[in-house]
């Protein structure tokens, strides 16, 4: 885990009392940070790393938190920004996926965990990051559209349409009872074309996510 972060990491003026309160607030919210991180990453180990990075960053930036405002939303915003900046970094380092998979001690545990995932959880992994985070915040985290918009740094209307599209996509995936794609890789080959044809002839046997499924739903 790295602690050197760009941006808001600014040493705060130490004050015993407010710090104690802030720390208690963080402690109380750790379970929610872990849940949000898990829903963003999927992988429990990476999610916990992300949640810990969030704690470090939150602690370093605690002077910028306005007491009395929503600490949970503040923390979720940090976590989300961290998620996207970690991922941008990961993409620049080419062989990240493979290396990380070998380094993570719980990699095999993770596989068995994945096998036990409910259909809904697996379907979630097929959504875009934007749709998934909006759906989790509003649908599971209990955030208002307004709070979710603040966390995701976008307009309220954008959150609403992301949630709506996410719900529709999940529904269409779960209605098709066929195996879900293991990863989001979109491969174009003759098999895919045949599957597309099958989908067209027999809705409900969808093999990939996206426009094709939307079409099926609207039919």
């Amino acid at each position, binding site marked *: 885990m790295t602690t050197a972060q760009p941006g808001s990491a600014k040493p705060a003026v*130490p004050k*015993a009392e407010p*710090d104690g309160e802030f*720390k208690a607030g*963080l*402690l109380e919210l*750790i*379970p*929610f940070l*872990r*849940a949000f991180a*898990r*829903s963003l990453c999927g992988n429990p180990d990476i999610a*916990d790393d992300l*949640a*810990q990075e969030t*704690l*470090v960053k939150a*602690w370093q930036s605690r002077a910028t938190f306005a007491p009395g405002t929503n600490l949970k939303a503040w923390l979720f915003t940090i976590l989300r920004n961290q998620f996207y900046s970690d991922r941008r970094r990961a993409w620049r380092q080419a062989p990240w996926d493979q290396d990380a998979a070998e380094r993570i001690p719980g990699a095999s545990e993770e596989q068995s965990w994945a096998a036990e995932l*409910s259909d*809904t*959880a697996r379907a*979630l992994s097929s959504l875009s990051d934007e749709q998934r985070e909006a*759906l*989790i915040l509003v*649908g*599971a*985290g209990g955030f208002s559209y307004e709070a979710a918009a603040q966390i995701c740094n976008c307009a309220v209307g954008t959150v609403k349409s992301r949630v709506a599209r996410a*719900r529709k996509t*999940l*529904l269409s995936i*779960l*209605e098709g009872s066929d195996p879900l794609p293991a990863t989001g890789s979109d491969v174009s080959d003759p098999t895919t074309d045949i599957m597309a044809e099958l989908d067209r002839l027999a809705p409900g046997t969808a093999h990939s996510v996206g426009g094709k499924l939307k079409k099926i739903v609207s039919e």
Partner: protein
Amino acid sequence: MSNDQKGDREKNRVIRVRQRAIGRELRRIYDNVVKESVPDDFVALLQKMDEREEDREDESEER
């Protein structure tokens, strides 16, 4: 009411029922993680950051 309208209402009802089920499942997935006991290293991390801060304060008081 025409058969088409009946069909639409039935379709919408089914969709609502399924959406509710998905919503419940989403909350269940999220709540399951919330209910997990927090790994020790989280608490240790907070403790460490807090103590480091106190050490720094003590040092500055001594000088």
